[in-house]
């Protein structure tokens, strides 16, 4: 299938990295789409958890919020939010957490808090939510974000959640036993931290994308791994599954227009 959008490629590339054995802490948006595409294609037994407390959920349409009724209706069970953060996230039961943000730096630290100074922000963003502890307590972190100069920046004004900090073994030095961000999936390419320095490095380029496009859309001088592959293009099954769930979702969310 050669007819697909960059966002579709991003979502499908994220979905592929998941397996039946994963227990995923899912965020709203691209992560939710990716996790459910994985569930509906190659990983039917994957466990999806949303921070609202729903465990083992199998939504037919993607939730708009982290606590849509659909998530509870299709869950194996639903726990309180304190229990979710204490027993399941902090308890070390999550294999893979998804994060995104307004801004990311080369060590996969994220900002979703403010642009400008914290006390007098130019733009007040929603804030961290679950991110600080998702970042430290999940076995590994996947990040999905469209590549852009505004989003991929040289220096963050605020670190909402830590990725690899200042790089190298900083996570270990802070006592963390989890891997942190192991993959950043963008609409143009896939980045992985360099094994030594932990700097994000291009390892796979999506079909039809050039190295120049990637360099131009990144706010720092982005590096390419020694061996860069081309991301396999979406299969028909992947694309159909994603488009179907997106269509169902759009219909469901706009179906109650009388409301506002």
């Amino acid at each position, binding site marked *: 299938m050669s007819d697909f959008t960059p966002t579709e490629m991003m979502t499908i590339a994220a979905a592929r990295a998941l397996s039946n054995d994963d227990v995923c802490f899912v965020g709203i948006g691209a992560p939710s789409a990716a996790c459910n595409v994985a569930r509906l294609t190659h990983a039917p037994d994957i466990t999806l958890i949303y921070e609202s407390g729903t465990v083992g959920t199998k939504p037919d349409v993607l939730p708009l919020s982290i606590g849509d009724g659909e998530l509870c209706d299709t869950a194996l069970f639903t726990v309180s939010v*304190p229990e979710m953060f204490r027993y399941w996230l902090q308890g070390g039961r999550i294999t893979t957490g998804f994060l995104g943000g307004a801004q990311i730096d080369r060590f996969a630290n994220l900002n979703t808090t403010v642009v400008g100074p914290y006390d007098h922000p130019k733009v007040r963003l929603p804030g961290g939510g679950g991110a*600080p502890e998702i970042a430290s307590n999940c076995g590994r972190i996947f990040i999905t974000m469209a590549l852009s100069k505004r989003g991929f920046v040289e220096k963050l004004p605020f670190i909402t959640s830590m990725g690899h900090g200042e790089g190298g073994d900083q996570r270990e030095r802070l006592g963390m036993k989890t891997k942190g961000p192991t993959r950043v999936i963008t609409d143009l390419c896939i980045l992985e931290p360099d094994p030594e320095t932990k700097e994000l490095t291009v390892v796979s380029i999506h079909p039809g994308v050039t190295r120049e496009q990637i360099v131009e859309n990144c706010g720092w001088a982005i590096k390419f791994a020694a061996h860069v592959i081309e991301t396999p293009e979406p299969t028909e099954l992947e694309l159909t599954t994603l488009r179907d769930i997106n269509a169902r979702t759009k219909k469901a969310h706009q179906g109650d227009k009388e409301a506002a």
Partner: protein
Amino acid sequence: MAKIVSLAEAVGDNVRDGDTVAMEGFTHLIPYAAGHEVIRQGRKDLYLVRMTPDILYDQLIGVGAARGMKFSWGGNPGVGSLHRFRDAVENQWPRPLEIEEHSHAAMANAYEAGAANLPFATLRGYIGADLPKVNPNIKSVTCPFTGEVLAAVPAIRPDVTIIHAQRADRKGNVLIEGIVGVQKEAVLAAKRSIVTVEEIVDELNPPSPNSLVLPGWAVTSVAQVPGGAFPSYAHGYYPRSNAFYIGWDEIARDRDSFTAWIKENVLDAKPEDFAKHAGTKPARAA
């Protein structure tokens, strides 16, 4: 023992100017009708607490009812910014808003510690994050056995907690089902509490012995307000109006359109107006 009263009485009896108020509900069962009654009764200088201040707190902030807010995620879920919240923080309109910002894990643990009558909560949290640099209420404790250093935050102990639930019986025992969030903890952590419910029934009939029930003697006031969680939802009664959440973005973006909306839908409205939302969709089997 909970008093079963009208919403106006419940708010009048329990919410005072200057109070620390938690209105909880994690996406589900957000007490919109009660929040609107707080606005209608003109309460001011409130210190608002809520993990996810969404549209309801955007409204309270926009009308100038709040002096401050403790929170962990302030956005319109799946849609974008809370424009009234941003206007208050970025431009101090209609008044400055003192904020204390935490992570979800810290807030959830802080409510839990409040319910457990502990002065603080301990968590593996905030590692490498910048919030502790700007929030003096994030400190640390050292494990007396292993020497590990963990994050500590103060317990949340609201003056009053307000929640919405599916139903209560005539003794004020309350059943909450589905995504239960931090509501139980928020009620037990508070000095006083208001629970609005879809219906008051003769027999509570929880589906399981382990269902989440708040006994009437742990609740201050119960008021029946069908549809009272709209545009949020009540599991088993009516779904979330995602369209309202999407539509709010446009309404709240502009100060004038926001103010007009509040006049029409809050100041000139009454709790009974929520009842139409309770009936707009067939109840989903619980």
